[in-house]
């Protein structure tokens, strides 16, 4: 009987061994493979379908496409149709006013979080995150109860004798705007808090020590340092509210036409899939343009962060 002698291997590992090693060690792109597959299925493939539908004439029979030919007709029609321009303009102004209002309402909350004590911080976090735990549809329905003809607002105002007739808030632009701001406010506050608490608390004390008032500290130190947070929050709120469907549909009373509700009508009611695809593509492209603008403006005010690389 001979003793087993351990000899170290000096030959190169096989492909299988290298693959197993790469998978287990998490090197290279392997860890991202599941995510890439999911993205291909839920984002890239539908996008390709959207493109092909938008640039073709199709015939639909019993819910299936029976013929498809290339055409730019839907795109040119859309771009020359005044209804499209009005609808997109409405979407844009709604999303922009929502974004601006979210900054105006969200910033003081984030500032309070920064300067407040332990319990203030906890309360703000709970109040900001709690609404995210319920569906947007449920939160939107809640506004029906508040803003309706016999809702809380009208009952209170009439009870106080301030008005005789209930105000018509529901199914107006105002109802949509109020709902939009409330639904999207957490998405603005959370990035603001994240960015503002990243900086050393002593920076604020240094400003005060150097003679800055509360307002001076806010204006010269806290505000400039929170620009990245405002940028991130604004980009998120804009994207979500520009493409939103639920809030305008429910609080606008079904006749509030923005880009998303228009696409819904085109696809679901008129079965004009090509039209709907072109509208979706236009919505996507115009949204990207605004996002790039937000990024450029944010960069303009955060040049100092580039210094880190130098």
């Amino acid at each position, binding site marked *: 009987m001979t003793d087993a002698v351990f000899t170290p291997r000096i030959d190169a590992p096989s492909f299988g061994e290298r693959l197993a090693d790469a998978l287990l060690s998490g090197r290279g792109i392997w860890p991202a493979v599941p995510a890439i597959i999911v993205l291909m299925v839920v984002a890239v493939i539908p996008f390709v379908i959207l493109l092909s539908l938008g640039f073709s004439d199709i015939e639909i029979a019993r819910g299936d496409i029976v013929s498809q030919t290339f055409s730019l007709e839907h795109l040119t029609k859309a771009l020359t149709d005044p209804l499209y321009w009005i609808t997109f303009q409405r979407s844009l102004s709604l999303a922009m006013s929502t974004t601006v209002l979210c900054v105006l309402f969200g910033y003081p909350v984030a500032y309070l979080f920064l300067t407040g004590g332990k319990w203030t911080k906890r309360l703000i976090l709970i109040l900001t995150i709690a609404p995210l735990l319920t569906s947007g549809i449920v939160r939107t329905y809640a506004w029906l109860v508040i803003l309706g003809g016999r809702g809380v607002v009208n009952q209170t105002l009439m009870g106080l004798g301030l008005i005789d007739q209930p105000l018509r808030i529901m199914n107006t632009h105002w109802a949509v705007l109020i709902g939009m701001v409330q639904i999207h406010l957490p998405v603005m506050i959370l990035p603001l808090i994240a960015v503002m608490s990243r900086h050393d608390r002593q*920076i604020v004390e240094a400003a005060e020590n150097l003679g800055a008032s509360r307002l001076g500290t806010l204006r010269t130190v806290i505000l400039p340092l929170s620009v990245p947070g405002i940028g991130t929050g604004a980009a998120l709120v804009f994207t979500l509210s520009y493409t939103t469907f639920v809030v305008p549909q429910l609080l606008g009373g079904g006749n509030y036409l923005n880009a998303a509700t228009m696409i819904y009508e085109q696809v679901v009611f008129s079965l004009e899939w090509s039209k709907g695809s072109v509208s979706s593509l236009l919505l996507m492209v115009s949204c990207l343009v605004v996002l790039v603008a937000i990024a450029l403006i944010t960069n303009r005010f955060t040049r100092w962060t580039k210094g880190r690389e130098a």
Partner: protein
Amino acid sequence: MMQGPTGPLRDIATTVPVLGIGAVSKRFGATTVLDNCSLDIAEGEIVTLLGPSGCGKTTLLRCIAGFWDADGGSISIDGQDMAPVPVNRRPVGVVFQSYALFPHMTVAQNVGYALRMAGRPKAEAAKTVASALETVSLSGFEDRYPAQLSGGQQQRVAIARVLVMEPRVLLLDEPFNALDAKLRATMQVELRQLIKTLGLTSIFVTHDQEEALTMSDRIAVMRAGRIEQVAGPDEIFDRPATAYVADFIGTSNFWDAEAAGGSVALPDGQCAKTELVGRVRVMARPHNLRLGPPGNGVWTGTVAFHRNIGPLIEYHVETASGDTIQVAAMRQDRARPIADRAAVSIVVIDPAGCSIFPAP
């Protein structure tokens, strides 16, 4: 350039301390962080608050700066009570531990911040900023951002930033913590010289005794919210008021003894004078002891190990009674250090240099 007060103010300054801390107390809930602290600081003096973390030194600094209000006692600058003066109106400049530079401002904007907040004309402010940057040898760095500077440069920006506001009192909160050991030693000397040239009345906070001995005119050793001793570096080191101070500053050897008739017997047979009677603790610094051949004395032991610290050799000697005594000897050219495990005797060089405290 001396920056002391001129005219009628100077007369006040000669009689009133620049900074007066009178019986200041501070509590957080049930914890007393500062307990009856009193300290007067004269024009141009550098005083260090020295103590372990949690001794209240940073709390005292924050009370002087106005970030926190004291619960009792008074803080005054040039005789004026600071209690009603808000943090942004106090003539106090703080150099923070983290420097707390404004990351979104250039070096020039950082340094000019106090002038901008005070609403000074831009041209005048630019001149002041340039001269402050020259003072800290940072001319040419005006347009850099803090993230583009080294730790030492950031510290100098932080100093220049408070210099432009011409504070009556300069507060420095562990300013060397973020620097590596070699740079730290250089910056300590440079900063002391700079402060002395400008004649700024300053308070340093540190837990590093070497830093305190290097930087200060006087050291206030703090312990659990109280000031244990205030004295110059030499006196603190050579004549510590309490065993705590002796233990905290420098290396010390302690042993218990019995005092009677105005003196206490030392283990090597000599006597040290004391007014205490009964059980006492005796302290001797390692450099006040020397080693001799074993037959020469009554205080004997063996060398456990020795440690090479530059110009000194530090011997750890285990005595017959079981104590470990540290003895420092100057390194001598070509002479070999005493070998480990060698039998030796210990002799006190100067009995009057021993400190004697009441036994705890």
